[in-house]
């Protein structure tokens, strides 16, 4: 099967839901492990200030991400 045909087939299968492009396969920005947008959807509800929760989520994300890349580049 040619490359273009394979690509078309893949797109059709995704559209039909045969292949599931799950949330955790969303392209994430460098520095992000689990995007806030993904985490936000997991809360049943947020009664307080969403921004506070987001800021702390993203602050720890940066540190944890640094651990992974520091093993590659520093240690």
């Amino acid at each position, binding site marked *: 099967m040619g490359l273009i045909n394979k690509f078309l087939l893949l797109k059709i299968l995704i559209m039909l839901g045969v292949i599931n492009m799950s949330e955790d*396969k969303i*392209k*994430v920005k*460098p*520095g992000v*492990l689990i995007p806030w947008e993904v985490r936000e959807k997991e809360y049943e509800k947020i009664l307080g200030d969403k921004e506070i929760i987001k800021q702390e989520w993203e602050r720890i994300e*940066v*540190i*944890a*991400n*640094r*651990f*992974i*890349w*520091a*093993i*590659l*580049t*520093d*240690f």
Partner: protein
Amino acid sequence: MSEDMQKLYDERLKRYTIALKNGKPDRVPIRIFAAEFTAKYAGYTSQEVTHQYNKAFEAVRKCAKDFNWDATVINMVYVWSGLVDHFGQKYYKIPGIELDPNVGFQYFEPKDEESAFMKENEYDALIESPTEYLANIWMPRISSNLVPIGAPNTFRNNMAWLKGGIAMMDYFAACGEAVNLLKTECGTVSAIAGILKAPFDILADKLRGFRQVSVDIHRQPEKVEKACEALMPYMLQNAMVTSDPAKQVPVTVWLHRGTMFSEYVYERYFWPTLKEIILQLYKNGIQTLWYGEGNWSKWLKYTAELPEKSIIYHVDKEDIFEAHKKIGDKFAISGGIPNDLLAFGSPQEVKDYCKKVIQTVGKDGGYILDASAIVQSDAKIENVKAMTEAALEYGAY
């Protein structure tokens, strides 16, 4: 911090940062990158400074104080075995464990496809999601404690993630304090902040390894190219978050393998992504210290494409006088004092050579005195002292 120490620090910071921008300060700054030499001078073994980071920091401070260094790095024995032992990296041999307590740590690279930490058919996974690839596939391979995704979990695996993270936080917190002590106890500037590797370099060492990449550039060149492109924004992000918030001192790019390949390989794989990262850093007000290990003279025409003052060009094995003629008007230059001279020469020979470099390369400013490569335990103490004396005697403008 005493007023005198603050004054000394301010003078040194000014001297160093003017030189970084290719300017002419009051004299040539002394910025030494010293690793196991500091242990020798402070009376510690390599094992002690590799295992006990406070001894490593203390040894650097002793050198900074006694040798009057304007700037240095808090610890160039960059492998702290506390982290390595708990997380379980397989690629290091550590003094006091596999090595004699008096030699420096060693990096061992997988020598064939079977032992490579990244396999030849894994480029797509790396390109698709670099961080996931590292965490899920590469890390379990480089660690003797981690289990791969899908394998039964183990206590050892869980503890390695926990202890690795805690160890890194512990070390980085101690580094912050060490920077502060370097300033308050010695009046010495922490010379660099932030880490950068060229995407192709990281492929050619810790991911695929030199031998494997040498095959890949022929068998799957597009994948190698795309992998460099995929790694580029991650290397940039890593450099940005670790850089100096005050943007006074540079990020360092430790360049390993670029000189070991042909011009075609350099031009296609190595240079484009490295250049883009350096340009992006500079757009954000951050200089890069170009720490080219080996002789990078053959790629000077590429390096010269970078904007004026965007880098500080460190000289290892190449002719520093030639490098100065070619790019000295664009970039500050550092290093160039041969390590074999520090190991085998006499203090007078060291002084004479430093004088020649200072009066030629440093004639109009923009020179930072340092050894060619990181100073190891083979350097004679009296020769390192002679470097400082040369800067003080011949370096004033």
